[in-house]
């Protein structure tokens, strides 16, 4: 449909370009103009201006690209529909925030209902390939609590921290005096902090991770989505998908807020100065990345330039591709017939049609894509609007997936790319946290991050930025603007001139934008600004490392630590895997386990396609001859689980704590042909090196924690991720019987172990 419409093509092209026209106008003027003349440029400007905000709300709430896209579109459809019927404020951000929240909440509830059904019907397997982001709850909580604040407190927070507006700008937009704005801002912050702390979240601002979800936000609003949204908004009847339409109808009254940079709030909540704003000089990761989201159902086969297929043909092709992938790769492939039958039943239900009596027989006859096509053709509701196609498709897949053990799921290439970037630990930027110094009227570097490019170039906390790439930044009191100036692709240089507050001498920093390694390991105690003390027991010379996650860089971090801990005279190690969250790749687990073991058998992966594959370690174990105790609790991730099992099975470490919750399922991603998407399918099972043992991993020494201890330990660990501790807190280790047991185990081992004699 889109292919034949010159207007759409034209719009699409235009949205890809940066549209300058009208961008200076306030939202109110743009909306008035749009309502009066259907001015597309005005609407495009609105999408561009608030796209990140809306996407952020949708994404954080749903964490599902397709769903988030639907909600994103629905929100703007509502905006378009109501453009002429509301008395707009200067900024529509508040209103969009509210609508997006409601739309997303509705979509989420719907998905929960669906999931509850799935769980009743099939055993859920844990994911190896893709797991959830650790910060999800926190983000969702901040969003939710923000939404619950009264408008007079929410609005200043949104304008300051999410839109990065100066006091003057924000006050003007709200029609308040600057003093009123500042007062309400402070009050809003206090209230939000209070609400979050009641949720037990006051100190778990997982700063870097949240910033990453902020990055997801930025990366995800693609030109394609913008174009699709614009089409939907301009002529909902014609171009909008049914899901979007349904969602847009659930959102009625206008309310709330704006573009929230959650990261900045997290910092504030962690006790930073009021009036600062946190941003990452980042974007390199998404720069030059054309991976757009194609709403597949809207552009069937557009890429091949053929006339648009009948929707059932495209659907049959997609469904058949999925069936083939599952048949070829699934660990226990279900019968095709059963899968198709479930799919068709669900499809018919969505279509509101009764099952033909001979359905089972007809499904049995589906032995090729053509036959599936003809079956779908026969069953396709004749009166269905084209917009019904996505719903029918969703229903068909939904039913099919119900019939496949370990329920597969679909994800876009973009979602996978984001996951990979997180897993690969290659977040790109200058690596600074900046804020506005109101007194000096300059943007200030609050924290140059550990091992970040800015710090390498000599940036110091408190540095005021007076010049960027030869341009004076005097009077630039907008942190967001500054962040834009600092952003750029990996490997490019930005020259920053800085000075310390109250001083006149300036320093010129040449910052080469690059990866900001996000630590996956942490020490026992903080030392200074960004150092760690790893000593857990100085007398017995036992070191401690918390393995927060297992990603591509984890092994490297341990390599660095080995040299350091050896120098410090350590000779035994507590590896804490509690509350560790994986990015879930078996490959990374293999690297880590392989780096801790000496040529040993790690585990075996069995799957249907290949003979069982034995994974082995290389011959250069880290911490050779050191006794190791591993702290473990209810880890669900199979990557971590696999590492723990390999350490236990080869008697490399004593596991202390509680049993894990992983099940050893292996999933793999398969690209779907001729579309931007992937399917994740259960393909294999991990078998432990010690065949007598299974999953979950049980500790060698059982040790538990009380509820209070548990929460204290979790808090202590989580806080390690903050770049600086909130004022008034310290990082003293809490009462922790599991840790005590681990240390006791190591002391025993050191007394008798052969490794000790061989030590230094």
């Amino acid at each position: 449909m889109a292919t034949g419409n010159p207007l759409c093509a034209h719009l699409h092209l235009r949205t890809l370009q940066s549209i300058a026209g009208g961008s200076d106008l306030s939202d109110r003027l743009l909306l008035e103009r749009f309502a009066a003349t259907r001015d597309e440029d005005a609407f495009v400007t609105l999408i561009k201006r608030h796209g990140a905000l809306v996407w952020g709300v949708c994404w954080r709430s749903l964490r599902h690209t397709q769903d988030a896209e639907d909600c994103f579109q629905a929100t703007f459809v509502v905006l378009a529909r109501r453009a002429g019927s509301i008395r707009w404020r200067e900024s529509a951000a508040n209103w969009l925030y509210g609508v997006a929240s409601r739309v997303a909440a509705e979509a989420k509830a719907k998905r929960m209902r669906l999931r509850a059904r799935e769980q009743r019907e099939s055993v859920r397997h844990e994911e190896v390939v893709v797991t959830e982001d650790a910060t999800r709850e926190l983000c969702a909580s901040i969003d939710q609590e923000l939404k619950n604040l009264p408008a007079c407190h929410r609005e200043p927070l949104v304008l300051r921290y999410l839109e990065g507006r100066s006091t003057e700008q924000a006050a003007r937009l709200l029609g308040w005096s600057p003093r009123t704005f500042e007062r309400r801002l402070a009050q809003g912050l206090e209230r939000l902090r209070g609400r979050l702390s009641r949720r037990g979240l006051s100190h778990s601002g997982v700063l870097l991770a949240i910033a990453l979800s902020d990055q997801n936000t930025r990366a995800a609003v693609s030109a394609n989505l913008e174009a699709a949204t614009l089409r939907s908004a301009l002529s909902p009847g014609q171009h909008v998908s049914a899901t979007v339409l349904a969602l847009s109808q659930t959102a009625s009254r206008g309310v709330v807020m704006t573009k929230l940079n959650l990261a900045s709030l997290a910092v504030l909540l962690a006790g930073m100065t009021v009036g600062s704003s946190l941003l990452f000089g980042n974007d390199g990761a998404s720069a030059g990345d054309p991976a757009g989201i194609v709403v597949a159902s809207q552009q069937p086969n557009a890429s091949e330039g053929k006339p648009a297929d009948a929707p059932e043909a495209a659907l049959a092709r997609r469904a058949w591709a999925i069936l083939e992938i599952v048949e070829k790769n699934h660990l226990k492939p279900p019968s095709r017939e059963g899968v198709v039958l479930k799919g068709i039943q669900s499809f018919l239900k969505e279509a509101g049609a009764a099952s033909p009596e001979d359905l089972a027989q007809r499904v049995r006859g589906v032995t090729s894509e053509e036959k599936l096509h003809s079956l779908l053709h026969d069953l396709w509701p004749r009166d269905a609007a084209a917009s019904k196609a996505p719903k029918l498709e969703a229903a068909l897949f939904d039913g099919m997936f119900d019939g496949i053990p370990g329920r597969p799921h679909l994800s876009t290439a973009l979602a996978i790319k984001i996951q990979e970037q997180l897993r690969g630990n290659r977040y790109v930027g200058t690596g600074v946290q900046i804020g506005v110094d109101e007194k000096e009227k300059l943007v200030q570097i609050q924290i140059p991050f550990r091992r970040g490019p800015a710090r390498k170039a000599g940036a110091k906390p408190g540095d005021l930025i007076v010049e960027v790439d030869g341009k004076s930044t005097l009077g630039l009191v907008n942190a967001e603007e500054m962040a834009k100036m600092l952003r750029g692709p990996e490997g490019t240089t930005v020259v920053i001139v800085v000075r310390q507050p109250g001083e006149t001498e300036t320093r010129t920093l040449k910052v080469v934008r690059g990866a900001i390694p996000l630590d996956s390991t942490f020490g026992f105690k903080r030392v200074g600004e960004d150092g760690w003390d790893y000593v857990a027991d100085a007398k017995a010379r036992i070191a401690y490392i918390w393995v927060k996650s297992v990603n591509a860089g984890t092994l490297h971090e341990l390599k660095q630590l080995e040299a350091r801990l050896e120098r410090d005279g350590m000779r035994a190690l507590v590896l804490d895997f509690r509350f560790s969250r994986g990015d879930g790749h078996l490959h990374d687990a293999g690297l880590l386990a392989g780096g801790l073991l000496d040529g040993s058998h790690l585990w075996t992966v069995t799957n249907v396609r290949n003979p069982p594959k034995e994974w082995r370690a290389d011959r250069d174990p880290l911490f050779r001859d050191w006794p190791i105790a591993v702290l473990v609790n209810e880890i669900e991730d199979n990557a971590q689980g696999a590492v723990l099992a390999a350490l236990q099975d080869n008697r490399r470490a004593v596991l202390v704590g509680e049993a894990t919750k992983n099940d050893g399922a292996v999933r793999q991603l398969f690209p779907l042909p001729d579309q931007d998407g992937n399917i994740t399918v259960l393909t294999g099972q991990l078998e432990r090196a010690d065949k007598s043992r299974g999953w979950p991993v049980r500790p060698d020494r059982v040790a538990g924690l009380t509820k209070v201890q548990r929460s204290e330990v979790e808090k202590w660990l989580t806080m390690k991720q903050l770049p600086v501790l909130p004022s008034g807190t310290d990082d003293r280790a809490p009462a922790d019987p599991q840790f005590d047991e681990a240390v006791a185990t190591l002391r025993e081992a050191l007394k008798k172990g052969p490794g000790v004699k061989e030590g230094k």
Partner: protein
Amino acid sequence: MGSRIAASVAFVGVLLSCLDASRPAERAIAAEPARTPLEAVHRRPVAGALSDDGKWLFVANQRSGTVSVIDAASRKVEGEVRVGRKLSDLAIAPDGKRLVVVDEEAGEIVAFRLQGSTMDKPIRLAVGSSPANVQLSADGDRAVVALQWPRRLAVVDLGTAPRVLKTIDLTFAPRAQLLLSESHKVIVADAFGGRIAVVDVNAGKLESDRQLPVHNIRGLALSTDRTRLLVSHQVLNSSRGSTSRDDVHWGNLITNGLRELQLTSLLDPKADLLRRSRLHRLGEVGRGAGDPAGVTTLPGKWIVALAGVDEVGIRDAETGSWHRIAVGRRPTTAIPGPDDRAYVMNTLDDSVSVLDLKTNKVVAEIPLGPQVKSNVVDRGESLFHDARLSHDGWFSCHSCHTDGHSNGRLADTLGDGSHGTPRRVLTLLGVKDTGPWAWNGGMRELDAQVRKSVATTMQGAGLTTVQEGELVAYMKTLSPPPALARARKTMDEAVVRRGREVFEGQGCANCHVPPTYSSSKTYDVGSGEEGGNQSFNPPSLRGVSQAGPYFHNGRAATLEQVVTKHRHQLKTDLTKENVSDLLAFLESL
């Protein structure tokens, strides 16, 4: 001073010509007096040694076949002697009275009497093909020479009647050596892969031959307390790492390392070599240290040349910390001198950097002669050895295709879209005739393969078209390795003829078509792998005796296993004689 050396060098020239005439059996010596000014040629310094309490530095130049004599005080080249065709090593006896130069191309060593800066009384001795390294005994009368392609050591008497006393066969091509004079044992390391052997020189006996999980061993040195052996090498993480961006970035694919082995474990043939060993990882994320080469130990300091990134690494024993200093291009070894000085051979820059080890700074760079403009092949050679072609400088082409050959390891290069199916690194020697390239024969053009390797295996910034051409031009100069039987001169023509009949009778030549013993198609030979790839392009059999392990996944350790254990594409059963004839034929290719 200057005149003295000139005179002595001239004297050497005269003397050498006399020698040439009087001893026709020890053929051709192209020694010429040093020219003033020095000739404009490529030199390629690869080895050096100091004499006379560090007053004189003698440098062996690979390409020009000359030895440059440098006055350490004035940091000037005082003379240059043409000694041979292509030099690979140079050593001075502990008593300072004998200098031995290795002529790789001529298969000879040349021993000089050394007095101050004067090299005279040369003795030229054929030792076997491709000598790569020489070690001298404490008295200077005995030399142990590593012969690369013949896979053997030659023990040479340099005394009154110079001769090769004995040869000791090895299972691998040797390169780096270290002679433990007090025990008459020599430690010898693989030129490409990770084997390390201990040979009793007096008894002529191979005491142990073990595998380290490493490759590209370029430097051996004893710790100053003589309890540990330091080995510079690389590790290709075959089983766990892949050439994905992440793994390259985080150093999960290649480790550049300096390994401390306990000498007691090494000398005990039954001990686990890695027991109480330590691996020092060189380089860091964002700043790899590709291709560690020569290593030197001093009290409180280790120096390792980082050939791929044009730096040397200096480790302070007290703090365990490393300093890295930029030197000239492709530093291959460093020679410690008096007064906290060290001399670094910048092979591709034709220069020597002088380091001050107190301040860890380069205090001078000594050019060995007038610089010559590089041609396309020279620039290709330079790129081939440049680790900065890879992301963050972790490795160069040479890292895995060591000296253009293969490190014998498996690498998961994801080259043809498969994952988790590491394949054996192929040799590039003779590569110009072995198209199509890649295991699946997917690459019709060599430059396309090169482009792909740099982009996807090395994860580098990519090559310009010009660079691509240069690399390919260099690679096309690499000729196949000599067959083992030819290198050892053990070929029996009659047996080889019979073996050829077996080869042809079994239809081997259908896929391995002479003269390259390869062909352009791919075949399913039942060696299929898990990733689903069943068909492979038959690798060329030229130099196959030097190329193990065999098959794409390296599952046959020897050629014999290919025939007997795997019965690779045999039509009929072979008798024992058939097998040995066939092997003899293959080893003649």
